[in-house]
Each structure stands twice: as structure tokens, then as C-alpha cells.
């Protein structure tokens, strides 16, 4: 069965932001930074890595990990796409969500 990458990743990120009490998590933009603006932290990165590994079968030990590769929904989708190439199980879908407003960053800023 084919898995749509982008909706799946977006759903996960939104849930993660909600879990942290991030009120604007519902409207997160695909290009919006997640880690470099403090909305998610390295603890969330761990959870996200395990989600990607389990859902998309990626081995991060082979990817040469850098947190920038998970810094937005676009980056995660690109990482999964690059790693899997043209694998049929995973289907890319175009970005659908509008860019989130610039001021949606957390108060840690």
C-alpha cells in the first residue's frame, strides 16, 4: 500500500506541536522552521526520528544526520524522498498547506 509522505509527516508534526501546547501547531507551514525557531526541541527530534525510521524505514546512521534535515516539513519530506528515491511504497504529494505567519514562533525567541 502506498504511503503519502507529506500528509503523514504534516499530521505527525501537528500532533507533536499540539502535544507541546503549541496553539499554532494546527497551521504549521511546510517550509516553516521547527527546530531552529524553538517550536520543537531535541527531545522532539528523537521522537520524530523514531517515527520516520518506523514509518518510512530510514536508517539515520546511514543518512549522516544533521538536525537541519528535519527542520521543516519540506526538509523531512525531501530527506525521505532522497533516501528512498523512486521507491513505490512512498508517494510524494505537493505542498498544500499555506506558509504559516512569521510570528508564529514560540516565546523562547
Amino acid at each position: 500500500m502506498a504511503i503519502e509522505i507529506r500528509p503523514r509527516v504534516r499530521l505527525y508534526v501537528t500532533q507533536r506541536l499540539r502535544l507541546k501546547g503549541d496553539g499554532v501547531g494546527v497551521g504549521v507551514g511546510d517550509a516553516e522552521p521547527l527546530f531552529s525557531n524553538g517550536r520543537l526541541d531535541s527531545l522532539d527530534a528523537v521522537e520524530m526520528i523514531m517515527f520516520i525510521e518506523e514509518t518510512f524505514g530510514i536508517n539515520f546512521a546511514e543518512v549522516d544526520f544533521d538536525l537541519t534535515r528535519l527542520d521543516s516539513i519540506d526538509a523531512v519530506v525531501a530527506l525521505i524522498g532522497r533516501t528512498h528515491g523512486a521507491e513505490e511504497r512512498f508517494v510524494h504529494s505537493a505542498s498544500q498547506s499555506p506558509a504559516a505567519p512569521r510570528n508564529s514562533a514560540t516565546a523562547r525567541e
Partner: protein
Amino acid sequence: MTDSGSAPFAAAAAVTMPAAQPSPTPASRSWRQIADWRPPAWRIIPAIDNDPRLIAWVQRLPGRIVLVFCFALVLHSGTGPAAAGLAAACAYAGRYRWHVIPVATLVLLWWNGFWVDGEIVARVAAQEGLAQWINRPLLMAGMLGFVFVLFCCAIGLWHSLAASWIGRRSTLVLLLLFLTLAAIGEAPICRGLPRVVVWSFLATVLPFFWFFAYALGDVRAGGDPAPFWQRLGLFHPFWGATLTPFGKGVAYLRRVEAQTPADLAVTQLKGLKLLLWAALLSIVLQLFATVAHQYLAIPAYDDAFARQIAGHPYPWYVCWLSLFAFFADDLLQMAAWGGTIIACARFAGFRLLRNTYNPLAATTIAEFWNRYFFYYKELLADHFFFPTFFCCFRKYRRLRVFFATFMAACIGNLLFHFMRDIRFVVEMGPAKALIGEESHAFYTVVLALGIACSQLRPRSITQSSSSWLRARLLPGLRVMLFFCLLHVFDAPLDRVHTIGQRMDFLLHLFGLDLWL
């Protein structure tokens, strides 16, 4: 600053659909009112970074002049005015920003003696009977030049090593090299001038060690083709740092760099806002110290601990007060000091995240650890947690998180402090220096277990929607109590006091020393 706890909390609460409840009795209604109470959202420092007119004004020349003046005025102590001027030069240099940074860093490094601990070199030279024969300033200047050439060569070389086994384990290689050299420096065969040279090298490398580790990590990741001098320009950047890099390396800073004049204006206003907050915390810190230690006569923690060791302890409740005061003092100091550094980096045009962010709002040990000293936590995560996490126990989800956390919060933490205080090896000898770490080792083990357990506890949306008292206040108090008690094993952070002495103090806090 805002009390950020309430707004996200309300949003999270809105996510969950509440179940139908029977109509409450008056008693349960009043209890519910107490339980549902939340602190009001208010600001001490206005949100100047959200005012469009102000953002537009500080992009013009008069606005810039006033902004720089205000920033320099608040940042008035120590190298503050110089740092403010350098930050302004960096901010307004536009596309030459990355050329200004190395120059600015060099100026302040020169000012601060390149952070090299000359006492280590002096002590080793004295131990070897060479104090009068060695020109210490010349040796240290020569060593500094040699170390920086070495850094340049290594950064250049790492491009070709990036894919190799060594290249992918840059931090491990650096740690092994450093500790091996320290062992050689204390080996019986290494005596006289060679020992002075080895320790001079280690003392020179030490302040830049983690900056170098980040630089090699950036080279390995390969995302940013920055020349070596840009990377070196961030070794103890002019906005401030300790051994812990605030802002990591070039790759991270590029991501948070202001790209447009409007973006720069917002970033600088955020910097000014944070600096005002840090200044306010410094005032609160002084007031707190005056009230707690002078008016209320709460002894300093070190004093209470020393009295316990001497056999004349203060009453247990005084020791508790002393411990709480120490904890509060530590939090305020960390927030004020880290805030000033981040404010300066923001003024230079880098929208770095705050170092200490509302630690009292933490409801888990892992969250407190993340909020207390962000860039140190990031250092341990980047250099210890993730490398372990990707390699070990990949099939066992919980064990994998637990082990990686342990490697970072315990082993990494311990190694970091052992290296930071490497002078103890010279002063006390390697055996005593290692044994003296027992108390801090215990601290890191307990800390790692605490963080790992709190990480492994599942969080849920429904949990975050329960009352403020139950979901925020009580867990927050538990977390603070944990860190307060943990401080007994790392304060004062020396190699003299044994774990037994610290355990006695802990027992005294609970009044158990009379029973045992």
C-alpha cells in the same frame, strides 16, 4: 517577559474534547475554581519586536543610532560597550557580516588573553623545575599559533575524511586524542620540557575544543562550504561563550541569520528586549542575595556544607533554606548571564534561541534540563546523544533512548567537566583527580536516570489539559525538588569533598543523621 505557560496551555486544552460531567456541588465547584486557577498572562517588558512602526523606525539611521546607544547603555559592564559596538558593526555590515565576525572575535579574544589557562603551564613548569628557564608568554603565544594552524589543517583535511570511519566520529577522535595527551603528560616517561609542552598544548586547545568539534561536525555534514577562517571566527565568538559554544557552528548560525533589514530590526529588538530582561534579572539577583543572606541571614550553601563537615551543622531547616537559596541564585545567575550573551548575538543579527527559558515552568526533569542551559544540553545532544542513538540498540525503542540519554547526560557530562577542570590532574595528580570525580559521577548518574525516565514517560494531550495546579504546579515543584537535592552532589564542584560528606549533608536535610 511573558508568562508563556497560560496561552499554549489553553490552546492544548482546546484540542481535547472534554467528557460530559455531572453538575458540580458548591464545594466541588469551589475546589474546581482553585484547581482551574491559572497565573495571569502579563508582560514586564513590552513586546517591542511586534510593533510595526518601531520595526520600521529602527531600520532608518536615527533609529539605528538610538538602538545601538540603548543597547550599549544596558550592556555597560566589563567588555559590554565594546561588544555592543562590535555587534552593531557585525549587524550593519550586510554581506560583509561574516568578514566582520572573525575580526570582532579576534579583538575580544586578544582582550581576554584567548581564554588560555596560563596557570596550568606555570604550575607544570614549576613542578619540572623549569619556571625560570621558560619564557611563558612566548611559549603560550607560539602554542596558540601552532594550535590555530593545526585547527585550519584539520578542518581542511576533514573534507576528505568526512565519509571515513574517523570522519564520522570526529568528537570521539578528539576526545580520545585529548585524554591520551593528558595521560601522556602525566606518564612517568614524560618529564621536563616535553611535559611542559604537552600541558601547554592541552591548555591552549581546551578553550576551543567544543568549537572545534562543532566545526568538524559542520564539515562532515557538508551542508555549508564556509572557508576555514569563518569557522575559526566563531571559536569563542565576540558575543560570549564559555567552553560551551552559544550558537554552535557556522551551519547553525546561517539558519538563524537575519536576511532582510526588517528581519534584522526584529532580531535586534528581540536582543534589546532580552538584554533588558537579563538586566532586570541581575537586579533581582542582587536584591535576592541582600534579602536572603543579609536580612534573613540564610547562610550561603558552601558555608552550610562546610559547617556540616566541621561537625557543627546548622539546623536542618536552615540547611533547606540555604539549599533553596542556592538553587534560586543559580537559576537567576544562569538566566542573566546566558541572556546577555544571546542578546549580544541577536544584536549582531543572529536570532538565537534563549539559553535559559522559563525553567520554573518545566513539569518534567527532561524539560527542566532543556530549559535551564539550552546550549550545553545541545552540546551533549549533538556530540553524545545522537551519535549513540543512531548506532546502538536500534531495534529496542526504549532501551535505545535510555542508553543514548545515559551516554549524554552521564558520560558526556562527566567527560565535559573532567576536561573543563583538567587543571586538577596537574594540581592533584591523575589518581586523586579521578577519584575526586566520584561525587560528580554520582550526580551525573542520577541526573541521567532522571532525564531518561522522564523522557520515557509517555506524554499525552489529555494529560496537558488537566488543571494548572495538577498539571503544572505540582510536577514543577517535584522537578525543582529533584534538582535542589541533586545540587548537594555537585556543589561546590571540587575534587576535595567526598561523596560520603555530601551524603551526610543530604541525610541531615531530612534529619536522618541523628538516627543513623
